[in-house]
Every structure is written in C-alpha cells, then in structure tokens.
C-alpha cells in the first residue's frame, strides 16, 4: 500500500496525524481485520440477543423435547444430522431432546462473558503489576518478578482444575450460594490468576525502556508525583503494546474457559456453555457427530478470528513488525 493511499483526502493544509489515527487508517484497509472482527461481532451479538431466539423458537434451552427423539434407537434424535429440522435448526441433544441452537446461543453468552471478564481482570492486574515493577525497579521489581516466575512454574491446567473445588469450598463457607453463582467467579479468578504474568512481563519491559525518556524527566523536573508519572505519563504511551498483548491473549482465555468446563471444573449444568456442550457430546460423537461439531467448530472460528484480529492489530500499531 503506497503512502498516497493513506494520505488524508483533504488538501487544506498539512495536518498532523496521531499514531492512533494512523493505526486506524491501516486497520480500515485490512480486509482480514474486518472479516475476523465481523465474526467476533456476530458471536457477541448472538450471545446478547440469545433470549430473542427463545421467543422465536417457542422453547427454552433447558426444556426437554422427547417428541424429537427416537425411543427405539436409544433416544437419539429423529432425522438427519442430529435432528436438524424447521423447529430445531441445529438439531436436538441426544437423550434429552434439548434444542441445540438455543443451548448454543446461550452457551456463547456464558463462554464469552466468562472469558472476557477474566481477560479484563488479568489485564488490570497485569498492567498495574507491570507498571509498578518496571517503574520502581529494585526490591519491588524483584519481589514482583519472582511472583510472576512462581505463578508460571505452576502447571496451569492441572492446578486450575485442582484449585477449583478448594476455592469453591472457601467461597461457599463465606456465604456464597452453591452452584454457578460461586463456580463462575471461581473460574474467572483461576483463569485470570494464570493469565496476568504474561501481560505484566510485557508491560514491565516497555516501562523500563520508557522511564528514562525525556518527557518523563521533564514531568519529574516539574515536580510530578511518582503516581502521576506512572499513571498519567507512562501508561498513556503504553496502550498500543497493551492492546496487542490483550488481543493476542483473548483466544487463550476462551480456550481455557472451555477446557475447564470440558474437564468438569467449569460451568455447571443445566446452564449452557460451549465447553459443557462438547463434554456432553463425547459419548455420542460417533453416532451424532453434528452435536460435537457445532460447538467445536464455533470455538475454532471464534479463536481463529481473535488470532487473526490480534495479528492485524499488532501490524497496524507496530508497522515495523513484519509478518
């Protein structure tokens, strides 16, 4: 893409453009970014309007439909491709006859809201720890860096799996109700606990290279407090690397959420979730492959879209990086 293409259309004088405006220009011309952004938007929307599907289909994600099952065949769905029909667009679940489309859209809701909340929590912790560790250096840095090292030394999936019942026990004994009201906060805690060091490490490196720059010195000479330097001077200059790190980390958060649920340490039935749909489909994968395929392929598409969008955002914000 030549520079002329990127130049603003107006000829009224030379206008300075901020780095973010330039990055936006680049993203605007990136077809991959648009398509992957569209896929993500689509999944977000179906999650948000999930209750609407319930109205259209006149059933709920948890109601049983024995009429769609063939009792003689071991309660498998009637019809091809897992019972796809005009009443059940994605077919029905074997044994129970629950509508898969509804479980799918409500599952998008659970999966995405847990993964995105965990991303947010991990990002906030990671950014704060990275900023403090990089800016103050010395003892603070040593302690915080050691902490990151120790968290990374834990076998993450195994530990996440193991710690879930314990944390649940602690939260329940402190008065939270049993079930998903406790389980979901526990999942968010666990996923973000293992996610923040990756973000903190990158932020720390960026801060170290930035804290000796002239504009920080200037602010310091003007008598700015250290908190002002960290959060008002340095942080605003870091949003690009932070955005890139977060964009590239979201897929792994989504994957972990589904994996935890798949292994049985996640969202509890009957609440729907893509990971639990996959888990529920395992006994039937050879007779009703469609049931496995729908949530599995959707997860693949979503993670792929986030990966591609992350790459695009990185390329737009950091033009030096070559693919």
């Amino acid at each position, binding site marked *: 893409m030549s520079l002329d293409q990127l130049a603003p259309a107006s000829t009224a004088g030379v206008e300075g453009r901020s780095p973010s405006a330039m990055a936006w220009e680049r993203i605007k011309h990136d077809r991959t970014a648009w398509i992957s952004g569209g896929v993500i938007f689509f999944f977000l929307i179906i999650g948000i309007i999930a209750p609407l599907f319930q109205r259209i289909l006149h059933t709920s994600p948890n109601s049983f439909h024995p009429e769609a099952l063939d009792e003689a065949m071991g309660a498998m769905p009637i019809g091809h491709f897992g019972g796809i029909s005009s009443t059940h667009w994605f077919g029905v679940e074997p044994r129970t006859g629950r509508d898969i489309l509804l479980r799918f859209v409500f599952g998008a809701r659970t999966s995405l809201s847990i993964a995105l909340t965990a991303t947010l929590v991990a990002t906030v912790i990671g950014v704060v720890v990275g900023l403090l560790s990089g800016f103050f250096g010395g003892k603070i840095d040593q302690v915080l860096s050691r902490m990151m*090292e*120790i968290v990374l*030394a*834990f*076998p*993450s*999936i*195994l*530990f996440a*799996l*193991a*710690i*879930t*019942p*314990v944390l649940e*026990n*602690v939260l329940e*004994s402190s008065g939270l109700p049993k079930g998903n009201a406790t389980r979901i906060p526990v999942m968010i805690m666990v996923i973000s606990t293992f996610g923040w060091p990756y973000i903190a490490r990158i932020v720390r490196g960026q801060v170290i290279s930035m804290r000796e720059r002239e504009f920080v010195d200037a602010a310091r000479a003007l008598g700015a407090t250290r908190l002002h330097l960290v959060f008002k001077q340095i942080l605003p200059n870091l949003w690009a690397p932070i955005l890139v790190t977060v964009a590239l980390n979201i*897929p792994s958060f989504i*994957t972990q959420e*589904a*994996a935890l649920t*798949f*292994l*049985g*340490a996640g969202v509890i039935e009957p609440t729907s979730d893509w990971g639990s749909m*996959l888990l529920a*489909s*395992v006994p039937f*994968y*050879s007779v009703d*492959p469609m049931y*496995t395929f729908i949530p*599995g*392929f959707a*997860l*693949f598409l979503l*993670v*792929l879209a986030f*990966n*591609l969008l992350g790459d695009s955002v990185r390329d737009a914000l950091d033009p030096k990086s*070559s693919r």
Partner: protein
Amino acid sequence: MFRYLVRRVIGGGLVLIIVSMVVFGLFYVLPADPARLACGKACTPELIAEIRHTLELDQPLTIQYGRFAEGILVGRTYLKGSTAQLNCPAPCLGYSYDTDELVTNLLKDRAPATLSIALGASILFLLVGLASGIISALRRGKWIDKFSQGVALTGASLQIYFVALILQFIFVDKLQWLHTPGYVSPFTSVSQWVTGMALPWLTLAFLLSAIYARLTRAGMLEVMSEDYIRTARAKGLTLRRINFKHVLRSAITPIVTVFGLDLGQLLGGAVITEYVFNIPGLGRLATEAVSNVDLPVIVGTVMLAAVFIVIANIVVDLLYMVLDPKVRLS
C-alpha cells in the same frame, strides 16, 4: 558454568519450596475444614475425626507444614486408626483417601503412559514444526509458505478435545485403521504401544507444531535481514551453509525455550489429551482425584508437575548457554 548451574539449581529449589508452601496453604489451610474436604464424597464423622488426627490439623501451622516437608524429604509414618501405622518412605506425599494407596505409588503407576505421550508427541511436533517453519521461511510468499502458515494458524486455533474427537471419529470409527487409543507398555508390545499412542501423538503434534512453525519462520526471517547474513553472502558462502549454520542457529534459541517449557508441562500430565482418549496417565490421575476431591493425590500431582516445570526451566537455561555465546559470556 558450574557456578551458574549451582545457582540455578538453588534458585529452582527455592521456587519449589515456595510452590510447596502455596500448595500446602491452598489445600490444607485455606479450606474451612480441610479434613472435610480431604475426606471426599463417602464421608462419615468418624472418618473426618481420623483424618484430622492423622493430618495433625490440631497442631500449629508451622508444625503442620514442617511435617509435610519432612514427609517429602525423609518420609513419615501415619497413624491409621488407633494402633495401625502406615509407613510412608521419602518422598512421602501422603496416601489416597480414595484407595488407601501411597500417592508416590500411584504416581509411579501412571508415569509411563504420560511419559510415552510426552516423548512421542514432542519429537513429532518439534520435527514437523521446525521443518514447516524452515520451508516457509526459505520459500517466503510462495504457495507452500501460505499453505503451511494456513495450517499453522488452523492448528493454533483448534482445541485439543475437538481435534481428538474428530481424529477418533475418522480413524477409529469410520476408517477403522486404529483401535480405540489406550496405553500398552512398549516392553509388552511395541506395535500395540505405537497404535495405542498414535492418536494422542497426532493430536498434540498437529496443535503444538503450529507454534513451532510460526516461531521458526518469524525467527529465521528476522535473522535473514541482519547485516551479518548479507556479509556471509557477500563473502561467497553457499546458501545452504548460511541458512543452516547462521540463520537457523540464531533462530533456534527461542524455540529451545518454548520446547523445554512445553515438554515440562506435558511431562506433568497431558491433562486434556489423557482425559479425552481415556489414557491412564498423570493427567488422568489428577482429573480423577479432582472429581473425588482426593486431596493428597491432587497435591501430589501438582507438586510433581511443578518439579518437571522447574527442571525444564533449568535445562532450558543451560542449553541457552551452550547455544548462545552472548549468554555464556555475560
């Protein structure tokens, strides 16, 4: 070099001590009633009282942790009931409340299956990843590069359990080329070992080689644009020599790091793979222990996995020194 090694081993030991404290704290101190939690599902008040007694939960925390650490280092003896004793030699991680077996024995039973998965898969994904990354970098922009990058991106976006089920559907249920995966010791039958492990290996190789292909490609392209490569070319070295002796050599260091950490993680239990294919390894042991809330077994699997990760870290650092003169001299 030797001093560095000693320092790294001591550092690794410290990390393990902290990990053991965290694990101890999380599983034995934090819960409202650890004995109740340790007791599992089939629990009676007598059993709780017994566990509280054998775990010495009435003692102060420092003594409790001391006994826990003592068990690992020199072994300990548990009082079972009022008279019976259970001898637990070092490294003692307690005994399972579910099966009454020593945790160390359970770990020993399950280790071979995990070792088989980890070694076979890692050889496969390292070779495939490196090869496709090298070809991609050397044929940058050509169709084979685009194809292998597409495969890598697909692999990086797929889930282990999804791929596992698809492969099992194709190769076991439809084509019937393979039996349902399972573990047979290679000392019993090599061919059964290979056919039983083939799907876990393929699944992990497909997903993980993607990362190596991307890393190799990016690393090699970066090195190729360095001045010293132009110099090497200008002084007339063959392309083959430049690519393998100079480019790959520099590009391989970050790959060694990732490989070491992946292998360390896998040795601690390929949790999801073992779960889907129902292979009796360490990861499967951990998932079983979690669903039975069998605390000592959970602690044991987590500790063992942490040991593997710490060792992998040390080995990676040492390899780094061998591979990268800059690290060696600083």
